[in-house]
């Protein structure tokens, strides 16, 4: 619209004015004033100079600040180009000032000249004119390569590439420096090739170096090309068996950064790592032994470990809910209080905000985030809403970047670093407030799910109005937001495609879909539910789009498919099941285990709506000869809830016996391995059969049972396994059970150990007592012997 306006109105005005000024049209004014009258009065000259300075100044500042110029971007440019930009900018400024001076004597001429100068200055950087005139080298981006070792206690390793020592890692080097030091080798160096293997001889390994060069054509493009290099790594006079673990790169027009992460095995270091891991595990054991009640000493020792953060505790808490107590304790210890009241909560909140502002980041998944979970409901929600509203309306970025995993999508880490940011973000304390509001919203929704809360009425609309962030608003919900989405849907009901306007599109799974439908189907509210029911066809189409896109056909169906299971056969999950099943067949044409896994995952999410028969039907579709190893099968069955697993596993075992001719490799071993798995599930028949096997075979199977438990049974379920084993009239099984009870000695497991310490079988008693003694020894270990080796002087430098 603006462009049409400029063309239809602005251009004719410019032409007319220009003709008038240049004298091509008659001017009554010229015949009215005396021929000897001055060109302009002093007042008008001064005024027009000032105004010209303002207008041209605005244009100049904008150009200088945004198109490779001063003062924003100079630090990013190559040195020579930065110098040229400064010269151009200063020249333009001097010319502009000259034009202003000319305006004082010849107003029209000066103004037109100033327009030409500003247009030229604005035109030069963007047009690529500079790149056509200046040397190519000036436009090459600065490229840095960083090499580092991954894993615990990494650092200080010597990096050798093509037999040249580059330095100790982590090492950052520019492309030019690298080329200067390291000669390119067309052929591998001596000693690289292994006569007996296609792999390089130890400790050599090969890696790809990302070179950056101008490909020509579009002169702005610098793209990567590959070259191969031969590397080896030494630490403490030991050459490591190493490989390139990973890497990545990124950057912009003027700066590129590439990272190379190496993995390596150093025997000495490995011992230290094992000792460190043992200490960490012992620390966790101490927590378990104290019924997950920890003190500041424990927390201090825990914090010395790299993995000693809240994320580790979160993962542990999935299987051991007792670790939630540890997280609570960690939070309270850090912020120094035992009980929470409004005053304390406010003080803690302010402290968290101040610390976040100072660190310019807020980790919603860290201790501070956990602490927020403990105090948020004692904070004044009205004040939080007011503060956050202000931030939303401020126009500043809500953060500079965020990182995290979708598994914990509420627990992002928000960075508020203004360095190199064009838009200075709000302070990190705003992320703290947002987190608090998010928690409040969940609480209020749980208390009154059918009523809008303050956050939904005040914050959700602001997300839409000031940020255009439908996703953030939808995460809060509210009737205003729901009405908004529904109306937008009525305005634009098309499901997908490039025909959708920009504002109606959401990019997901490699394609553009209708943004409004996308959010409506995912609304976890009564309105969302109603929409899904009323427009079940669109909902299912959206589910299909989100599941089977051209980029990722392995994605699981979205959660909203399972949001109305209470409707039974009319639910979306049931309606979608046939279509998904067909899609699975076409997506994985030759991967039987993937097909089965996807199906079982889906049925598991259907909960009680999925009948045993449905599971069986899935199993019967499978081509057994495509499954080579029982571990593949057992791994798939992990997806199923334990309480549904046993009947199915029994059926599968029967079926394996019937169809054993379809098992490609070692049918007996395959079936026996599955029977071992059934034992882990608590199947009495399989257990009885096991117990009656020959001792040698029994011992062999016992090892495999242990292996199955280690790989495929979750920590949470191991207690059931151990309890089941403890009931059996077999010492070996009981001893195996003791091993798992000792592994995670929560109070109830310790109780069971104590019971087993009274067992009639001596071996069982001994094993139980040994386990209890070991646990007691762990309980007695002083904390100074349980800190990470990284915090001691043990590690070599």
């Amino acid at each position, binding site marked *: 619209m603006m462009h049409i306006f400029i063309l239809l109105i602005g251009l004719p005005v410019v032409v007319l004015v220009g003709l008038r000024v240049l004298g091509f049209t008659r001017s009554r004014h010229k015949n009215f004033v005396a021929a000897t009258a001055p060109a302009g*009065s002093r007042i008008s000259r001064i005024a027009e100079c000032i105004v010209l300075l303002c207008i041209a100044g605005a244009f100049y500042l904008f150009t200088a600040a945004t198109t490779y110029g001063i003062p924003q971007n100079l630090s990013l440019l190559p040195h020579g180009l930065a110098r040229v930009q400064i010269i151009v900018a200063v020249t333009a400024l001097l010319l502009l000032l000259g034009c202003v001076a000319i305006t004082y004597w010849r107003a029209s001429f000066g103004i037109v000249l100033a327009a030409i100068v500003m247009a030229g200055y604005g035109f030069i950087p963007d047009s690529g004119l500079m790149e056509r005139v200046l040397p190519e080298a000036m436009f090459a981006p600065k490229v840095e390569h960083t090499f580092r070792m991954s894993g615990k206690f990494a650092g200080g390793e010597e990096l050798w590439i093509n037999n040249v020592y580059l330095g100790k890692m982590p090492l950052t080097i520019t492309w030019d420096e690298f080329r200067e030091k390291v000669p390119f080798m067309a052929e591998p160096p001596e000693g690289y090739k292994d006569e007996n293997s296609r792999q390089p001889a130890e400790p050599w390994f090969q890696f790809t170096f990302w070179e950056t060069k101008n490909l020509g054509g579009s002169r702005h493009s610098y793209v990567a090309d590959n070259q191969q290099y031969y590397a080896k790594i030494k630490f403490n006079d030991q050459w490591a068996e190493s490989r390139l673990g990973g890497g990545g790169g990124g950057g912009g027009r003027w700066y590129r950064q590439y990272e190379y992460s190496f993995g390596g095995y150093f025997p000495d270091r490995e011992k230290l790592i094992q000792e460190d891991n043992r200490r960490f595990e012992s620390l966790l054991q101490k927590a378990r032994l104290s019924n997950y009640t920890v003190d500041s000493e424990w927390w201090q020792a825990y914090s010395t470990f790299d993995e000693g953060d809240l994320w580790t505790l979160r993962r542990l808490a999935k299987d051991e809910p007792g670790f939630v107590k540890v997280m609570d304790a960690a939070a309270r210890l850090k912020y120094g209080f035992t009980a929470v009241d409004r005053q304390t909560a406010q003080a803690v909140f302010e402290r968290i905000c101040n610390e976040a502002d100072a660190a310019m980041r807020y980790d919603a998944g860290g201790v501070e985030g956990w602490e927020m979970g403990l105090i948020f409901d004692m904070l004044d929600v009205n004040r939080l809403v007011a503060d956050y509203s202000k931030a939303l309306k401020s126009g500043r970025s809500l953060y500079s970047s965020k990182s995290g995993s979708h598994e914990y999508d509420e627990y992002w880490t928000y960075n508020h670093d203004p360095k190199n940011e*064009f838009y200075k973000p709000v302070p990190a304390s705003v992320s703290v407030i947002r987190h608090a509001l998010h928690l409040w919203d969940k609480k209020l929704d749980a208390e009154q799910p059918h009523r809008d809360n303050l956050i939904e009425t005040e914050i959700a609309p602001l997300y839409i109005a*000031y940020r255009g962030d439908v996703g953030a608003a939808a995460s809060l919900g509210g009737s205003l937001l729901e009405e908004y989405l529904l109306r937008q849907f009525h305005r634009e009901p098309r499901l997908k495609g490039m025909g959708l306007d920009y504002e109606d599109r959401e990019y997901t799974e490699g394609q553009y879909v209708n943004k409004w439908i996308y959010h409506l189907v995912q609304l976890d509210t009564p309105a969302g539910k109603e929409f899904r029911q009323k427009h079940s066809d669109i909902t299912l189409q959206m589910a299909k789009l989100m599941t089977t896109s051209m980029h990722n056909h392995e994605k699981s169906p979205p959660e909203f498919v399972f949001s109305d299971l209470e409707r039974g056969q009319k639910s979306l999950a049931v309606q979608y099941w046939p279509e998904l099943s067909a899609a699975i067949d076409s997506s994985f044409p030759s991967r039987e285990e993937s097909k089965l896994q996807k199906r079982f995952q889906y049925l598991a999410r259907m909960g009680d709506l999925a009948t045993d028969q449905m599971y069986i039907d899935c199993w019967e579709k499978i081509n057994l000869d495509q499954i080579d190893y029982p571990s593949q099968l057992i791994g798939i069955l992990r997806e199923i809830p334990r309480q549904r697993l046993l009947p199915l596993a029994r059926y599968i075992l029967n079926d394996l016996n019937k169809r054993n001719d379809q098992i490609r490799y070692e049918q007996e071993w395959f079936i026996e391995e599955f029977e071992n798995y059934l034992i882990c599930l608590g199947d009495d028949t399989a257990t009885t059969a096991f117990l009656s096997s020959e001792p040698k075979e029994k011992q062999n199977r016992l090892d495999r049972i242990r292996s199955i438990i280690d790989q495929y049974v979750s920590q949470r379920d191991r207690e059931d396994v151990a309890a089941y084993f403890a009931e059996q009239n077999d010492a070996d099984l009981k001893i195996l059970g003791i091993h798992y009870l000792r592994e995670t000695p929560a109070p109830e497991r310790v109780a069971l150990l104590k019971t087993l310490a009274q067992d009639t079988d001596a071996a069982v008693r001994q094993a139980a007592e040994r386990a209890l003694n070991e646990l007691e020894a762990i309980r007695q270990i002083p904390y100074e012997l349980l800190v990470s080796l990284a915090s001691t002087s043990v590690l070599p430098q």
Partner: protein
Amino acid sequence: MKMKSSLLVFFLRCLWPVNAAAMSVSILFVLLYPKYFLWNNAWAAVFILIHSVAITFILGRVRSRSFAFIYTRGFSRDVLWLHKMLASVVSVFVAWLPAALLIGLGGRSALQDWFRNPYLPIMAAREMSAVWFWLFGYAILLPMFHYVWIRKAQPTRSSGSGMLLSVGLFFTPSALVPFGNHAPWSVMVYGLLAAVMIATYTISGFLLHRTLEVQK
């Protein structure tokens, strides 16, 4: 300097057809515009531009019979200028105030909500900032165009420079606005430059008004 009500009324009577049209258009526009208002709404910009040009053109017709009349009634140039500016301000409010009230008090939102407009009432909070920006647009354009007409009536040879600058002012934001990549300090700087411009145009317009020539 006391206000001369009949002089103010004189200027307002000259402007009443334009103001009546502007008020009607602005009310209808605000009530019926289907999308939400942002500060850079092109239709509003066109309206403000046309209204500003109309106001200043009518008040700047010093060669017309009626203006020759009022300029020779015995009012000093400063009094005439002041009342012209007052009349301009009143004209702006005649068009802007109903629109602002309709938006600020929720009338527009309520009507559009009744039409089941998806953008309202959810975007209503945002629209008020656009309303203030429209006022800012008037604040820049009116002194500038007043200056243009006053400059044209000066007893000096060159009269087109004011118009050239107004064209430059029109093109500069038209070129800058589409670019979203403005530095965070730019709002303050542009605001400061605009304030300097407004002050310059106003003061110079006031001073030059004393020397403009009136003759049919």
